[in-house]
């Protein structure tokens, strides 16, 4: 199993407030995107704030961004001036719009714009207009589920990610619900991809109860580490962080801190709050505490010459005297420009992976989806796999990552937070949506009897945590199950097919008679969903259309109850949709 130790799966809706829009836009400007384009993105983000949680907002907003660019000559020119790839992408956009824009969904148009370019050229061509569009598309996905699914689709079967939650919202209390929502939806990804999603909880001492929140999610919600982002305006040595450090040191919980001069920051002077030198006294005070310096101080420290410089140098010095110091190479896109600096970079990485103590302390990371501002996740992996020497990727992404995270070695149980992770998955084992990773199967076998664990494969997704499923089950239980079928447990009842239910008469009824019964079931189900507070999604406002769609499902003898429920979920929005899931 290879692990991307530095990724993000929050969507914009889970972090966006009027206050955070500025932070995000500052990041875009610092990445080199033209001011006019950033202004266009501002318009989209402000709408996203207003429509947070809207099912269709993301696609529509990307569509609007495309419109804004196509309708503005000076903006198109500014994008074309970025680089040759961007110029070609704008040309594709304008040509498509002249041809028949309204016929295209935003995703189709994006596909055409991004069509050119394999993984190699994707890494080499620098930031383009298309990259920004795809970055916006991912960020504006309706849910954290969707953002996670996009990265997991690009990984190999057993590869894992460490999603770092970020508390970049207003920490003065008003946004705690939003932040907890981000954490809860991230925890749900553990159950969607058990053993392959190992999240870190964000800590921001400007939020008064930050330690209590972190402790809660580390203890009961499967989070395995702590993410720090001091450039958002706080001091790593402040008193509020002491209980965090004490807790992490005592339980071998790994920390990961943003450590480069890029990224998000509240104001210019806050950048220096991420300096690794500030950690020397802390590491003396909390010996053995595990801390990973994200981005290794920035890639420039490894590509400018034979010897590491700047913050990178400082981190290596800390590694020499503190066994818990790690660093990751997330968002190291500088070497991708090629030339001497690229050669220097990989020579430095090779050296680090050869010499103690650094050889066990350098981790692989990509900074998904923020790195999408330049390249796709798959391209990032491809670039490093191609450029590293044999065995180096295994050291970065498997050996060192396992050590940092405290995953079980041999027959061990792993560190405290990993054990809590295993417990969390076990408690919620009936809500899992895919098979667990091999290490988790073994860990569950060590802590519990192996037979106690079973997953619900994603194609049979049927969960008590999904309101649509529970509501549909209750409906069938009331009106269309025999007494014996009512006695089945929820999991098995979802697998009953229509031909097994009372409303089905098979060959012993005329088509019209069967049709009448199916109409009745469909119309009653529609009435029940309304009584349960569900509202039709866009496109299903017509009762006739809703009933017609449900009738199609209940008229097919092979449709399972859980499949009817999934169809219902597509047709209606329930009160709990968008709300954070609850776990055992």
């Amino acid at each position, binding site marked *: 199993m290879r692990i991307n130790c530095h990724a993000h799966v929050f969507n914009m809706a889970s972090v966006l407030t009027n206050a955070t829009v500025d932070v995000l836009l500052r990041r875009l400007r610092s990445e080199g995107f033209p001011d006019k384009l950033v202004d266009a993105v501002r318009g989209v983000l402000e709408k996203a704030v207003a429509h947070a949680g809207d099912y269709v907002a993301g696609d529509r907003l990307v569509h609007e961004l495309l419109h804004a660019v196509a309708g503005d000559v000076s903006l198109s020119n500014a994008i074309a001036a970025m680089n040759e790839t961007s110029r070609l992408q704008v040309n594709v956009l304008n040509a498509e719009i002249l041809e028949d824009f309204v016929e295209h969904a935003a995703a189709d148009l994006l596909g055409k714009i991004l069509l050119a370019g394999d993984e190699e050229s994707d890494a080499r061509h620098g930031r383009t207009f298309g990259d920004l569009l795809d970055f916006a598309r991912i960020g504006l996905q309706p849910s954290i589920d969707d953002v996670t699914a996009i990265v997991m689709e690009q990984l190999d079967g057993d590869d894992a990610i460490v999603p770092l939650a970020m508390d970049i919202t207003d920490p003065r209390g008003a946004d705690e619900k939003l932040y907890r929502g981000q954490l809860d939806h991230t925890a749900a990804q553990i159950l969607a991809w058990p053993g392959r999603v190992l999240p870190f909880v964000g800590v921001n001492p400007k939020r008064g109860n930050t330690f209590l929140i972190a402790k809660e999610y580390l203890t009961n919600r499967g989070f395995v580490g702590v993410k720090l982002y001091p450039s958002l305006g706080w001091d790593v040595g402040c008193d509020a962080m002491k209980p965090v450090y004490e807790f992490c040191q005592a339980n071998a919980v790994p920390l990961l801190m943003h450590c480069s001069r890029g990224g998000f920051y509240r104001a210019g002077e806050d950048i220096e709050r991420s300096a690794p030198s500030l950690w020397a006294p802390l590491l003396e005070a909390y010996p053995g505490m595990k801390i990973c310096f994200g981005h290794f101080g920035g890639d420039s420290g490894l590509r400018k010459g034979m010897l590491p410089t700047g913050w990178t140098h400082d981190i290596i010095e800390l590694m020499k005297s503190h066994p818990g110091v790690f660093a990751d190479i997330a968002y190291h896109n500088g070497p991708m420009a090629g030339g001497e600096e690229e050669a220097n970079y990989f020579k430095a990485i090779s050296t680090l992976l050869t010499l103690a103590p650094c050889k066990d302390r350098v981790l692989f990371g990509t900074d998904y989806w923020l790195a999408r501002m330049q390249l796709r996740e798959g391209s990032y992996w491809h670039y490093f796999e191609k450029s590293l020497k044999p065995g180096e990727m295994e050291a970065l992404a498997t050996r060192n990552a396992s050590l940092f995270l405290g995953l079980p070695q041999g027959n061990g149980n792993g560190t405290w937070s990993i054990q809590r992770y295993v417990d969390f998955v076990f408690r919620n084992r009936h809500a899992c949506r895919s098979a667990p990773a091999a290490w988790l199967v073994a860990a569950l076998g060590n802590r519990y009897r192996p037979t106690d664990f079973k997953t619900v494969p994603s194609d049979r997704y049927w969960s*008590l945590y999904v309101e649509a499923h529970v509501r549909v089950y209750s409906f069938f239980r009331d009106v269309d199950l025999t*007494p014996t079928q009512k006695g089945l447990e929820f999991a098995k009842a979802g697998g009953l097919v229509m*031909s*097994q239910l009372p409303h089905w008469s098979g060959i*012993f*009824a005329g088509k019209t008679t069967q049709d009448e019964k199916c*109409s009745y079931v469909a119309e*009653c189900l529609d*009435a029940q969903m309304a009584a349960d507070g569900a509202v039709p999604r866009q496109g299903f406002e017509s009762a006739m259309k809703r009933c017609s769609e449900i009738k199609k499902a209940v008229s097919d003898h092979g449709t399972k109850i859980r499949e009817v429920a999934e169809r219902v979920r597509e047709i209606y929005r329930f009160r709990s949709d968008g709300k954070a899931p609850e776990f055992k």
Partner: protein
Amino acid sequence: MMRPTRLLLTSAVVLVIAGLVASPADAEWDLSWPTLRPGIAGGQEEKELGLSLGYEISEGYARLISDPGSFQWSVRARFESSGSYVWAEGLNPAPWSTVLAFDAALNMFRPAVNPDFVPGELPDESRRVPAENHGRLRLGLQVGHETDQSFEVHQVIGGLVAGYANIRTVGWAGLLPTVLLFGDGVLMVSRVRDDEVLAGADETYARARLEASLKHHFGEYLPTSSLKPLALYLDFRYSREFSRGEAWEETDRHKALYVAGGIGYAFQEPVFWCLRGVAAGVSYGRIPPVEKDSTVALVYVDLGAP
């Protein structure tokens, strides 16, 4: 005095139009594009093939009359048209059919009152009022026009459908069959060529059809748990045409009876990977257009992926 068929036609037209125009404020249209179906038509005796192009239009207009918490009255008007053109005219037995229908249905269903959703838990039964399910009453009227693809024969038809649908299969309520009664008539016929007018052949006539079916899970009363999925099935269908002429009636083609009965078993989980259920029974009689009565043993195997 107005003939009964004319009265029926007039009533149907009035009701359909009234349904369309009355209080449209809270009603809704369900509009869709026509469906086109290219295909190949073949004749068993002619041994020839012809390309065909079929179409289907179905537009609806519905109103829900009741409050969501009570029995649901729904009123629906539909316009449906279908037909196909075959480039070998003799191979197209299906008429071009256009129907304007008006249905009123009463779903005797009262939704459950459920407590708020609690993730990870089924609703607390002590805190919910279960749904009431008493079946569905339906009354419908329709008028339509049928013609062949050469537009030489035109028929105006009109009729009604009334029925009761029941999906309960246990207890006394499970003994109530689903019953549908159809009555319609060919109200007017016109032909382009007079030489085709045969004595009695173009008389208007009426037809009636009854469908009744029952499914009862009698296995639920048996003590052995493995027998509980057993169900009894009964199916009764009768159709009769009126005023088709003596020659037609002498051959007994004006009425048809079909009776079937059987026992079925639905497995709670598929056996042999894909077997979900089996049913066996026997039927007697015929369903038009089949012209000869017969006794048939029925075996039904329900297969599907697990």
